[in-house]
């Protein structure tokens, strides 16, 4: 009896999740009348704006990951090593982006950093890019911090630091060549999650008026019929790829540790 209910719950759930995926895939192949074809994908890939926005978002994702790692790894390390009393404060701040909706944050950015303010970041395209990168770093902060902090928990930070110091290493060497390589798996899994978040992000990019992948998808969705589901399939593949890579690095590290 229990098993019957268990199977029906699982079956019902799987059906709900599979149908939209089947639906979007099927629809994306229907551009040519009467037969399945990859025409919609060809149209998407032939669109120069696809490549422009895609590479723009990818660049921003890489920048976000770099900023995020440089911001989070030293902070998490320092809190663990020297400032355990700052932990509640830091953890609270890293949770804030889950509490304050992205649309509210970006509204604050626009009003705070507009052209007539003390830090006119939205005045130039490059300044806006920096602002958007910082916004994305904020969105990814809860995941990045949790991931790196969990990674740091598995290593003996204090002993590694002391050993490095007695061999004459400075702080940059310790962080870059001792700590970071040891939590590389955690950093990478945070990085892939960040990549997944940034590639599909719509609200911040749209309101800051930057040509990112999310607003491009939305624009195409408002004007075309067959390209949007093709884009959805591509976006799903990107998310799937990011999560797959995340699992892969985690599994790879378990394997390594088991061997050692």
């Amino acid at each position, binding site marked *: 009896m229990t098993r019957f209910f268990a*199977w029906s719950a699982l079956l019902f759930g799987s059906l*709900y999740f599979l149908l939209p995926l089947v639906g979007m895939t099927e629809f*994306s192949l229907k551009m040519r009348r009467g037969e399945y074809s990859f025409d919609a994908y060809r149209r998407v890939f032939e669109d120069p704006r696809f490549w422009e926005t895609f590479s723009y978002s990818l660049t921003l994702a890489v920048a976000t990951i770099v900023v995020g790692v440089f911001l989070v790894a030293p902070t998490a390390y320092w809190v663990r090593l020297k*400032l355990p009393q700052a932990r509640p404060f830091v953890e609270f701040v890293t949770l804030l982006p889950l509490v304050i909706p992205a*649309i509210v944050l970006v509204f604050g950015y*626009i009003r705070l950093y507009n052209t007539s303010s003390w830090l006119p970041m939205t005045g130039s395209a490059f300044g806006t890019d920096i602002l958007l990168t910082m916004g994305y770093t904020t969105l990814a902060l809860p995941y990045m911090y949790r991931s790196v902090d969990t990674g740091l928990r598995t290593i003996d930070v204090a002993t590694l630091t002391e050993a490095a110091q007695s061999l004459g290493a400075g702080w940059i060497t310790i962080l870059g060549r001792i700590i970071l390589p040891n939590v590389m798996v955690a950093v990478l899994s945070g990085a892939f999650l960040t990549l997944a978040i940034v590639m*599909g992000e*719509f609200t911040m990019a749209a309101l800051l008026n930057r040509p990112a992948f999310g607003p491009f998808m939305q624009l195409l969705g408002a004007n075309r019929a067959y390209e949007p589901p093709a884009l*959805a399939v591509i976006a799903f593949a990107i998310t799937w790829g990011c999560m797959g890579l995340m699992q892969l690095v985690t599994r790879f590290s378990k394997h390594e540790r088991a061997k050692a």
Partner: protein
Amino acid sequence: MAKDKVRRAERRLPLEWLGILPFAIFSVLFLILPTMRIVTGAFQSPDGGFTLQNLADLNTASIRSAYWTSIKLSLISAGLGCAIGFAMAAAVIFGGLPKGVRSPLLTFSGVASNFAGVPLAFAFIATLGPVGLITVWLKTEFGINLRAMGFNLLSFWGLVITYLFFQIPLMILIITPALDGLKREWREAAAVLGATTAQYWRMVALPILFPSLLGTFALLFANAFGAVATAFALTGPQLNIVPIKLFAQIRGDVLGNPNLGYALAFGMILITVVANTIYIVLRVRSERWLK
């Protein structure tokens, strides 16, 4: 000598706090100041003085109904997400299903909970939209016309169905560790005392899980409440929910009063802060049981 020690400790303390200075500067610039700007803006008149007029101006039929629709949407999608996610997680953990089901389900949940926004809307339009897979299939095979029956994807319930695609997986991801934390001994102890399975769930398991259930509910609520992209790509700017209204207001001041936008955003912060405070408090309480 003791005095010397004290003085050294005093001098060293600020230096150690310097280590988190970059993080502090970042969070002040890109989290705290922007939020403060919204909060203060909500209480400012156009000439900069203090006023409660903006908040009072929120009390119009259109804005009231936007808040109410948003709250209803978030409550219902969070409630259904919790119930269905719980059923699926419990099925996999306690239902006697093959072990091989668990790991793919968790992996898929990780993907699906991140597959939100614009592409998710496209997927549902291609499936349940006017010419979507299911709509057409029901019409040609069974003669059922969803549209004539009053179903419209670009409506409240369409939005609920779409939001569930990221709400259910999030629930599965959060509740699975909690279900794993239910110790077998508790079930056995209950059985020894003569409890039925239903009694065990009602009197032992659910009270233990209650904080994490309610907490996850709060998180899902905030998750749906702040979502813009999915709704915007699905229905465009016309659906009257708060995030969409705020989006339109930021883009073009549709309310005709810039400070009303602050008040609208302040209302959103207020509601998600309440939801998340519940979440955090209950999370801390529930973690006591999971050690």
